[in-house]
């Protein structure tokens, strides 16, 4: 395997490895755009394809890729020398003077510290970890047994039964309307649904309608309606009916 001929298919570059190196060295390809890890993966895949480990190729690749990595790493850090070089000579001199002065001040400070160390060298003192601070005690507030008993008594009391009344189903049973319709139909063979509903609530009307459908299913009545929203007419079927079905509530 020849490392230089390794074919690469990267975001920033497509082609053989040696062309990539040439472009990088000529500054025609910005290393910052280059995913070095992708090159390594490409090489490893290629290495995997071969039956035998090509030590020579691996070695050559290692040298090339580490040089590339170093170049990239250097490129990622700001180049102070280049920054200085971009300045006008006047500004560069100013900047250099500022830095030298700063360093010089710190050298002076270091010298002062060294002198100080010499003059204070005969000071001996105890050094060590400080003894632990005492634990702060957190006493309980004054307690009264009576109060404790009161509170316990409160806890021991059986709680009042919670009412579930509000959860009860408010729907009237369908059977109620079944009976009602049957009673009416016993007297009259034909009735008008709406006229039976006049004094009922909306929910009751709905349940009544369910009862009506139930009757229809049992074949006790026939239902007619001429057009949507027209009056619903209920007629008794004169067939002998059987009471074999069970009543169901809604």
């Amino acid at each position, binding site marked *: 395997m020849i490392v230089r001929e390794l074919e690469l298919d990267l975001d920033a570059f497509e082609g053989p490895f040696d062309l990539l190196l040439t472009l990088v060295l000529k500054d025609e390809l910005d290393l910052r755009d280059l995913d070095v890890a992708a090159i390594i993966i490409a090489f490893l895949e290629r290495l995997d394809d071969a039956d035998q480990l090509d030590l020579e190729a691996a070695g050559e690749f290692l040298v090339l890729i580490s040089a590339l990595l170093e170049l990239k790493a250097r490129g990622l850090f700001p180049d102070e020398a280049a920054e200085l070089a971009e300045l006008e000579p006047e500004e560069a001199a100013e900047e250099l003077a500022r830095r030298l002065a700063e360093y010089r001040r*710190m050298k002076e400070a270091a010298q002062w*510290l060294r002198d100080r160390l010499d003059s204070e*060298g005969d000071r*001996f003192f105890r050094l060590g970890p400080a*003894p632990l601070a005492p634990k702060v005690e957190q006493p309980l507030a004054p307690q009264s047994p009576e109060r404790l008993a009161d509170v316990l008594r409160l806890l021991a009391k059986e709680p009042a039964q919670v009412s579930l009344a509000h959860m009860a189903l408010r729907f009237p049973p369908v059977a109620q309307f079944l009976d009602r319709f049957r009673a009416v139909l016993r007297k009259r063979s034909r009735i008008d649904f709406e006229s039976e509903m006049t004094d009922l609530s909306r929910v009751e009307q709905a349940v009544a309608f369910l009862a009506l459908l139930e009757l229809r299913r049992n074949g006790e009545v026939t239902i007619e309606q001429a057009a949507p929203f027209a009056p619903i007419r209920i007629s008794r079927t004169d067939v002998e009916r059987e009471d074999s079905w069970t009543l169901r509530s809604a």
Partner: protein
Amino acid sequence: MDAPLRLISSNPLDQLAKTIEALLVVASAPLSPAELADAAGDDVERVEAALGLVGERYREGRSGIVLEHVAGGWAFRASREAAEACSRLFEKPAQRNLSQASLETLAIVAYLGPCSRPDIARIRGVAADSAVANLLERGLIAEAGRSEDAGAIRYRTTPLFERIFGLESLSALPRLDDIGESTEEIRDRLHAVAEKRTA
């Protein structure tokens, strides 16, 4: 730290001075007047007055133990007369063999701290890693958060630094603006070079 306010203290000053002596003997680091007041159960003004009494008694030439104002507090140390005897028995690991690089780094942290390794490297022109590690190990500097822009760890000097160098606080460091003349010299020299290049 607020000590309980006492309008009239039944505790005479010399009694308080004895308590302070005792506290300073037990302590292994300088104690601030507020800490002393807290422990003694007295107020700071009286503690400071009592410290005057203690200092009078434990001063250089009069006693083998000397009271000193150092690192933001008060502490006992050995008298300078006894230094030689002390040095036969005790080592001073924190300040022994400080290299020039370490001292320069220490100066930068003391004057400009808290500052990061890149800050130090920028001023000294070389990497500061080993010097910083060395000073950390000696306990002369400590971490002090991270810089806002790059997130680099920043360092400051420790109370031990102030104590070893006999400083009451960092503000006891001498001002360094007094070397302006030599800065001007550098500037002039550089300007001369710059003019030659443009010419």
